[in-house]
């Protein structure tokens, strides 16, 4: 018997909370103490002189303005490399929507005392790719990067900034509420089917190095991994190797036979 796998969820929750606190506190620090070392949120973030730019927004800006700006490309580099090697980890380990969804899940768990919440609506997973293509096409037709109007990870940060700086809330915040309501209807519905950023990161991470690998010899086919997966993937069918998997490590944690482990895949 191998040793039981690491419990990733506590680490993930800590990372999510830290990422959320980062965007919660920095506008306040910026406003009152002119602390500009860390600035911005998950559309564009700077730590010192290190820049991060959300790849989808950057790509749309390049496509719609038909011009390339060097610093933008450099800013997109780290998120793209992260997705290239680790897959869609931004979604499960950093995204503030993920944090809020986990918070909602936790509250629901406290109320209902059920371990797993059933999925409400199940659609074809390919919708995710159509969301990405449709998004980029629509942005090109309109001539403005429209993901920014409905980009929930960026909007959360912007709303927090609006509240701290101007004591108002922008109307776009409705999008965040809609996304969270969708999560109430069906687990991670927006993330699974409609998030273009998630789709782009999944596309970049198709050949990712870090994968959740299942050992069919150890598997006792209890099906608990499918129940626990926030994306509704079934590791028993090998769906953990599909581009949709966002490497949250939840299935590995619940697996009683410890048949699921993170593996650094060699090329």
């Amino acid at each position, binding site marked *: 018997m191998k040793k039981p796998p690491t419990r990733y969820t506590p680490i993930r929750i800590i990372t999510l909370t830290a990422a959320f606190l980062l965007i919660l506190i920095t506008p306040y620090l910026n406003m009152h103490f002119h602390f500009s070392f860390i600035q911005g949120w998950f559309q564009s973030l700077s730590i010192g002189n290190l820049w991060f730019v959300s790849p989808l927004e950057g790509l749309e*800006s390049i496509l719609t303005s038909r011009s390339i700006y060097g610093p933008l490309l450099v800013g997109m580099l780290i998120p793209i490399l992260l997705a290239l090697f680790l897959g869609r980890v931004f979604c499960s380990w950093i995204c503030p929507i993920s944090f809020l969804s986990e918070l909602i899940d936790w509250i629901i768990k406290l109320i209902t005392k059920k371990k797993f919440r059933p999925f409400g609506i199940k659609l074809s997973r390919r919708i995710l790719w159509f969301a990405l293509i449709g998004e980029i096409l629509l942005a090109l037709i309109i001539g403005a990067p429209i993901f920014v109007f409905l980009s929930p990870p960026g909007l959360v940060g912007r709303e927090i900034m609006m509240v701290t700086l101007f004591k108002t809330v922008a109307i776009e915040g409705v999008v965040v509420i809609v996304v969270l309501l969708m999560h109430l209807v069906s687990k991670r519905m927006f993330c699974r089917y409609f998030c273009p950023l998630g789709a782009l990161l999944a596309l970049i991470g198709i050949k990712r190095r870090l994968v959740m690998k299942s050992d069919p010899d150890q598997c006792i086919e209890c099906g608990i991994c499918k129940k626990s997966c926030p994306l509704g993937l079934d590791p028993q069918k090998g769906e953990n190797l599909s581009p949709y998997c966002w490497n949250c490590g939840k299935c590995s944690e619940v697996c009683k036979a410890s048949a699921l482990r993170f593996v650094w895949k060699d090329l």
Partner: protein
Amino acid sequence: MKLKNKKLSKNKKSGNPLPADQSKRLLLKSLGSAGIFFLGLSSKKAGAFSLKASPVKTNVLRPPGAVPEDIFPSKCIRCGRCVEVCPYKAIRPLDIRSGVYAGTPLVFVEEIPCYLCMKCVEVCPTGTLRPINQDETRMGLAVIDKHACVTWSQELALCRTCYNVCPFKEKAIKLDELRPVIIDKYCTGCGLCVHGCQVTQKNGKKAINVEPIYAFRTVKW
């Protein structure tokens, strides 16, 4: 039906009868404006087919170093970094009601002018605000309304607030026999003079206004 009659009679009683179709008209009006809003959402340039024009106008300007309005909405990713970094809270983001211009930053110089600290141009990740120097900033051009300005329209008035507040005194603004004159070659359009001007005209403008003449240059590829 009963309710409607009651309402009508009530109106008659109070003495100002409302036309029965007023509410309908209001509904149509709001529907129409909603339609215009959605049409505006899909149009980029203020041309023949578009109903949504750029929000940039007199005294409502883009932050320093902004690219022309032609490509501003397509280049800006609305991350709001310039809004966050502005120490004077002069830069404000638009909300979704502005169609394609939603989320883009604006400086309302009448309320809070730009103090040219040049922090916003350094943080812009997309190059929508290009990193430039203070004196290269061209947010617009200050124009004095000689009919409204007290030193120009009145004989014995002494006001030189715009001259006093200008960060490029004796360069961008000079005094010609105690009357202010703008030198267009050096004016940055920061709007400090607009903010300081004491005269407010009937149409809401000041005696000195910043016109965004540089924002509407066309872009050549």
